[in-house]
């Protein structure tokens, strides 16, 4: 599989490890703003992300949510990108505590491969815990880099 590496889509300035958010929509808005700053999406993508969040929560478990736009928002995507925002105090996500948001901008089918790679990482409880407690961007990069000997 020629999947784009997660880390190649994540700029260092798109990793923000010490954020606070009033609620999940505020957290989604911050993810959207980070994607706009990364030059990955137009402002309108942020509305598409909020719309998605209103329709179905993007909480995936392990204290992680993956805000991303609706299909209609794909036209606002200039290039595929990820942002990682950490909320050490936690954000209430419909009764679940979220401490890490991985914001996703994806124009084409790359979406599914990205989510698959991310989910593989989060299915390992130790790695999920490390992501929740990461304090440096190096730690985040290391976690998102697939282990060579993990391939199957």
């Amino acid at each position, binding site marked *: 599989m020629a999947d784009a590496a997660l880390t190649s889509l994540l700029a260092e300035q798109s990793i923000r490890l010490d954020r606070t958010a009033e609620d999940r929509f505020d957290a989604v808005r911050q993810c959207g703003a980070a994607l706009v700053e990364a030059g990955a999406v137009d402002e309108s993508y942020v509305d598409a992300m909020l719309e998605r969040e209103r329709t179905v*929560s*993007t909480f995936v478990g392990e204290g992680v949510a993956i805000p991303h736009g609706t299909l209609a928002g794909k036209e606002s995507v200039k290039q595929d990108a990820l942002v990682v925002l950490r909320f050490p105090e936690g954000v209430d996500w419909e009764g679940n505590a979220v401490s890490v948001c991985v914001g996703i901008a994806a124009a084409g*089918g790359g979406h*599914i491969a990205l989510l698959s790679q991310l*989910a593989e990482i989060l299915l390992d409880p130790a790695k999920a815990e490390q992501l929740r407690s990461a304090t440096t961007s190096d730690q985040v990069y290391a976690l998102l880099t697939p282990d060579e000997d993990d391939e199957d």
Partner: protein
Amino acid sequence: MPERTVTIASSVGLHARPASLFSQAAAKSGVPVTLTTKAGKSVNAASILGILSLGIGHGEEVVLSADGDGADAALDSLAELLNTDLDKE
């Protein structure tokens, strides 16, 4: 064990929103449901991370299986869900 072979109808595959709706339905079904891909990878259908990790695309076939009381009814309604384009808005 009762099982159903289903083709993923959602145009973008079984990703965040369809995966979320599907795993919630599986969790509510009251029986443990397993989802297996053609490649033979199996996950708990109620785990959204498990489902996302499979990276299932549109038109792919998966097998749902479950055992116990109500397994057939649960599989029917979950298969119906996957037969629907859950990403239509």
